[in-house]
């Protein structure tokens, strides 16, 4: 049988511009924070999983897991770089959890890292498009902003979602980001400012898009017996870890308003945890674009199908809402250093459950993360809980 998995330590750089810092140094910074906070001896760390997507094309660097482990003095253990486009970090976290749950390791370090801001927009778009099926959609010139432009039009057509509804997501998350010291781009935005921003992939505008970012995040997961210090109260337990896949081709999505991989992962996560959507106090979900938050909130069962836009506009997903979505600012405000994002979401939820977050959700005891890669080709959903 699987044994329970706990988060013993977290670490993170600020997400933003770190153009003079090598990618492996960012990862080492976050990794060292997590290891020190965990209080776990390095000899007990049995593996390293590192989430990263495009260090090859944008930095000319690979074998990052081994590079980072060596610089942290973790030698001789399995070190694995995990790639699943924007879900790389979430997948790395899940695999670390599995190593502990199965008893193969007592403690595992997970790091997510990316550096992007040194690249031009064209270089970045080209690198990110590696996550598309380039024998199909990529050949037509589709990009990821384009994918969500398609989804936006479909959602507007099917459910009547408006520009104003979608702008409410941007305004909320940018405001949340102002309160988060780890966030790249919090802002106090008006509807007029959102609507006046440059068109990127119609109807998607600049403020509807998450900023490219540099950054790293890390967590140490472990078995309960490794948690022997009062410093680590309250205990944060991984209550569910689900990973699914969907089609890499937009043409294989019969409904452009949903990602089947998210729906499946959410179902599995609720089943594993024995919880329901109404039990979740906050969620850090994959708002790579504003419309994505609306779709994700529906796919995760947090908001009724088709109502995501209206819930955002009515404030029902804000700090005082029915379900608090992206109190960190999400990808839209915190930034999206692609391989780091999934691990960064875990860090955010752990801080919330410990009651230590700068934008604290009052009384939070259960939090969810949702990390989506490519056209929904990879997805992870995790549920974390605070143990009394």
């Amino acid at each position, binding site marked *: 049988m699987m044994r329970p998995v706990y988060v013993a330590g977290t670490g993170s750089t600020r997400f933003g511009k770190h153009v003079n810092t090598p990618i492996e140094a960012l990862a080492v910074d976050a990794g060292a924070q997590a290891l020190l906070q965990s209080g776990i001896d390095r000899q007990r760390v049995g593996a390293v999983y590192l989430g990263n997507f495009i260090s090859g094309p944008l930095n000319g660097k690979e074998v990052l897991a081994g590079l980072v482990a060596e610089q942290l003095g973790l030698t001789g253990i399995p070190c694995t770089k995990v790639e699943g486009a924007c879900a790389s970090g979430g997948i790395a976290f899940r695999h670390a959890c599995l190593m502990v749950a199965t008893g193969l390791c007592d403690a595992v370090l997970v790091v997510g890292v990316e550096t992007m801001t040194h690249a031009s*927009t*064209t*270089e970045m*778009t*080209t690198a990110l*498009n590696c996550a598309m099926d380039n*024998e*199909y*959609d990529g*050949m*037509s*010139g*589709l*990009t990821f*902003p*384009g994918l969500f*432009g*398609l*989804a936006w*039009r*479909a959602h507007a*057509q099917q459910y009547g979602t408006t520009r104003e509804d979608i702008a409410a997501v941007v305004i909320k998350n940018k405001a949340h980001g102002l309160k988060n010291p780890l966030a790249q781009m919090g802002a106090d935005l008006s509807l007029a400012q959102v609507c006046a921003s*440059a*068109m*990127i*992939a*119609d*109807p*998607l505008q600049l403020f509807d898009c998450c900023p490219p970012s540099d950054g790293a995040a890390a967590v140490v997961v472990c078995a309960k017996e490794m948690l022997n210090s009062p410093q680590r109260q309250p205990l944060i337990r991984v209550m569910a870890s689900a990973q699914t896949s969907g089609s890499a*081709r*937009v*043409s*294989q999505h*019969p409904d*452009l308003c949903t990602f089947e991989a998210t729906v499946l992962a959410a179902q599995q996560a609720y089943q594993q945890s024995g919880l329901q959507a109404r039990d979740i106090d906050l969620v850090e979900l994959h708002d790579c674009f504003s419309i994505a938050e609306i779709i994700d909130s529906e796919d995760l069962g947090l908001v009724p199908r088709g109502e995501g836009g209206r819930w955002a506009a009515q404030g029902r997903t804000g700090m005082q809402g029915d379900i608090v979505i992206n109190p960190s600012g999400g990808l839209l405000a915190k930034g999206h250093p692609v391989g780091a994002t999934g691990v960064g979401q875990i860090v955010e939820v752990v801080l919330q459950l410990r009651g230590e977050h700068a934008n604290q959700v009052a009384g939070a005891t259960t939090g969810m993360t949702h990390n989506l890669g490519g056209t929904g080709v990879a997805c992870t959903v995790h549920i974390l809980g605070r143990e009394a």
Partner: protein
Amino acid sequence: MTLHSPLSALTVFQCHDCQTLTQRSPMVCARCWGRQFSAVSVAATGTLASWTTIRKPPLRFKSEGHYQVGVVDLDNGMRISGRLLNEANDQAGDRVQAVAVVGMPTDIPVFKVTPHG
């Protein structure tokens, strides 16, 4: 003005064993793992499911500047993505026709919204 002419049919690929249709010839049929496929013609008409204008293209398409990409439900039931010769007031549900475009690779399907009515 883009020079284009309507196509009478689009070419897709059909698995010999299970008859599944795919936009491109695969190595293996994902449904039955068959390995033999034939090129077949299907009607070049369909319905626009959604579309967008790409204003920040990747490197290989940068020289084109802005361009439109659409998702089309062909009349035979297949959904495919391709280029769209767009008009500003195109809408989901519009009827579309595949066209050949002078100067564009023939392996990218290109559609144009047909006049209403």
